């Protein structure tokens, strides 16, 4: 990526180079704008930094992770499954990037500061939201009504899917609209058996489908098909999964209108009270710690939900004393994440002479079935299941008795098929889950940090219990043995679907952003990452962030051309 420093006024400044920043860069440069992308972290060179094909034998601790170092430098990041011995370098140093919480209310803020952001390590699950989601707040009188419906975003789902490439199977379900899919990945032997058993028991109420993922099952837009090495979160030299680094940023770069500046820690935005516009960005250089400013006609906040809100809170002015664009008082409020970690696993008997060939970077999905056609008494909304079946590896030997030649021979052969369902539940917007600036702490660059107040409430906890029981019921329907219910007690944040804190809405009195992700209070300020969400649905949000970003860019440029911006 080109990394030039030149003093100029840009048509647009995009803060963040990850999932949404990459899309904003592609859309705005393709529409002719001269764009500056500010990225807080370092540049990533795929040839040098991707580690997906590094054999485990090359790792110093052979996959057991550098325990002492991560305990010291990444005590929070290390709790994310993807922060492994290969990929921990894609996660922030927690001592340089502190935040605070009430000790009794932990929040796991998982962050990636580098060109590509968390789009490098994301799990690539890509689902459309439906009107079951967009209408939920209005129907139940919770939070603020979404200012858009499925019809508003559908063309943009089509648009981003056609570019990114999403593998999946059309199912015709109203609660999980089908997309423009590349061919689906195959289920394995045990998954096929479980899918058929669920269909027999539950009909169309519960459908197990193959995961919909931003991974290429065939060559797509010049990017190669997946070679099934498996661990996408360590990078992909063939660009076979979607990340900003693999897909959107190279397109923006080709326009010749992109300037990407890594090591640019944004401190705050500069607001001109005369024109009521943001005119630029205050930046601390990540390496030299020198303060500098950049000017732009449009500002797009794409720094991740909590970073974008942090920047607005740190940009308070005499007029906006509680944070820029916060006349509603809603900035920082209604933090959400999906509640996860509840489910069940069990052994599916048989198929011991069959295996799965290839490491499928995708699982299965059971779309939401609670409060779809039924009405549950005990909870609002619902959850979906991700999961997979796999044959246990040599690692089962760690917990098995035996030694010697027979033990070794046994462990060479994979174990029985184990099927796991793990739920992802919707989190209700609640103003008591919020973030504010902790005036007592700054990060390594002197930027005031967030204090996060967030906890699971009764509705989420009830969903978690229900997902454990229903997962076990589906396993029982499939004839599973040794069914084991689990609850990992995951803190909010760890699902890495943190959303809200600068919600969209029709009414400027109760929302920060309008239906085009434009700040009600500041016309030339857009925010298109997860902070904009008015509710959380139970499905993975990234595809929706992509679609909202492309949609907002289209609106911003058309307004600009009309002279409205």
């Amino acid at each position, binding site marked *: 990526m080109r990394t030039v420093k030149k003093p100029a006024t840009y048509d647009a400044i995009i803060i963040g180079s990850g999932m949404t920043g990459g899309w904003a860069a592609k859309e705005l440069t393709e529409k002719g704008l001269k764009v500056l992308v500010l990225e807080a972290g370092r540049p990533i060179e*795929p*040839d040098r930094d991707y580690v997906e*094909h*590094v*054999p*485990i*034998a*090359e790792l*110093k*601790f*052979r*996959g*057991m*992770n550098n*325990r*002492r170092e991560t305990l010291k430098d990444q005590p929070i990041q290390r*709790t994310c*499954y993807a922060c*492994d011995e290969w990929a921990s370098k894609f996660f922030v140093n927690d001592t340089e990037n502190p935040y605070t919480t009430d000790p009794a209310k932990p929040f796991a803020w998982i962050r990636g500061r580098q060109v590509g952001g968390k789009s490098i390590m994301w799990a690539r699950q890509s689902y459309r939201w439906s009107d079951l989601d967009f209408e939920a707040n209005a129907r139940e009188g919770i939070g603020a009504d979404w200012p858009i419906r499925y019809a508003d975003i559908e063309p943009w789902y089509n648009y981003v899917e056609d570019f990114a490439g999403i593998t999946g199977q059309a199912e015709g379900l109203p609660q999980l609209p089908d997309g423009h899919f590349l061919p689906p*990945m*195959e*289920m*394995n*032997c045990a*998954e*096929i058996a479980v899918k058929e058993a669920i269909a027999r028991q539950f009909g169309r109420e519960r459908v197990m489908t193959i995961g919909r993922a931003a991974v290429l099952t065939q060559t797509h837009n010049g990017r*190669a*098909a997946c*070679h*099934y*090495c498996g661990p996408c979160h360590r990078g992909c*030299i*063939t660009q*076979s999964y979607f990340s900003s680094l693999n897909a959107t940023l190279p397109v923006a770069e080709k326009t010749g209108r992109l300037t990407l500046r890594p090591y640019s820690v944004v401190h705050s935005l500069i607001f001109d009270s005369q024109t009521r516009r943001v005119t630029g960005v205050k930046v601390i250089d990540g390496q030299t710690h020198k303060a500098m400013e950049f000017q732009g006609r449009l500002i797009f906040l794409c720094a991740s939900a909590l970073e974008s809100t942090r920047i607005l809170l740190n940009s308070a002015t005499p007029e906006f004393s509680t944070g820029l664009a916060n006349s509603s008082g809603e900035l920082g409020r209604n933090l959400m994440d999906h509640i996860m970690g509840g489910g069940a696993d069990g052994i599916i008997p048989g*198929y*011991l*002479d*069959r*295996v799965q*060939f*290839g*490491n*499928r970077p995708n699982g299965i999905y059971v779309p939401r079935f609670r409060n779809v056609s039924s009405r549950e008494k005990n909870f609002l909304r619902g959850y979906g299941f991700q999961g997979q079946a796999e044959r246990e590896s*040599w*690692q089962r*030997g*760690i*917990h098995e*008795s*035996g*030694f*010697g*030649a027979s*033990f*070794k*021979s046994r462990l*060479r*052969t*994979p174990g029985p098929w184990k099927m796991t369902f793990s739920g992802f539940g919707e989190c209700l917007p609640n103003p008591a889950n919020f973030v504010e600036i902790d005036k007592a702490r700054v990060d390594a660059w002197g930027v005031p940090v967030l204090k996060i107040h967030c906890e699971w409430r009764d509705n989420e906890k009830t969903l978690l219990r229900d997902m454990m029981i229903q997962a076990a019921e589906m396993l029982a329907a499939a004839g599973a043995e040794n069914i084991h219910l689990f609850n*990992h007690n995951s803190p909010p944040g760890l699902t890495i679907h943190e959303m809200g804190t600068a919600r969209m809405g029709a009414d400027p009195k109760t929302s920060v952003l309008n239906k085009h992700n434009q700040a009600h209070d500041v016309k030339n300020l857009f925010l298109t990452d997860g902070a904009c969400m008015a509710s959380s649905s139970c499905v993975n949000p990234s595809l929706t962030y992509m679609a909202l970003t492309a949609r907002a860019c289209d609106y911003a440029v058309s307004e600009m051309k009309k002279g409205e911006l």
Partner: protein
Amino acid sequence: MERREALRLMGAASVFSVLSSDLFAATLQAQIAGNKAGSLGTLSAGQNEIVVAMSDVMIPATGTPGAKAAKVNEFIDLILTEWATEEERKVFLEGLAETDRRTNALFGHGFADASAKEQAAIVQGFDEELTVSHSEYSPKEPRPWELTLLLPFFAQMRRLTLVGYYTSPIGQEQELKVDIIPGALHGCVPAEPEVKP
């Protein structure tokens, strides 16, 4: 050709699926080479001999090399030196001393000098004790960041021997025949006939 370059060119040419993944074997080999043995950081020469012998009883050479050839002892020493807590290390080293005490009591010499049959008898004893006390340590695999070696000695030894062996070049390539780049996905296909040990 460098491994990544090869992959990228193939990605660009979109002919990946028709090429044999053997092509990558050589370049991967080059990556694996060069992990040379260092000197021991924790284990004394005597303790090291016990670890070498015991790991090889647990995972012996059969049709493929065993724990000794895979230098499992060096991995265990590294974990004791740079990963384990003081308390975990103490449990392990005490376990090695106990191993020698038991062998001496039964056979009149240390574990490393014992016959294969004698060593197997000692390991069998540890294995049976652990099975009895199985519920006292977590039988479920912990999540990676919760991994601990605060376990009975033989549970430590079994975990470290298995990890050390199966993640070694010998374990990955010869025993498990891991193919890092399968190049295709087939959900449900016949297993290859098992290689007889």
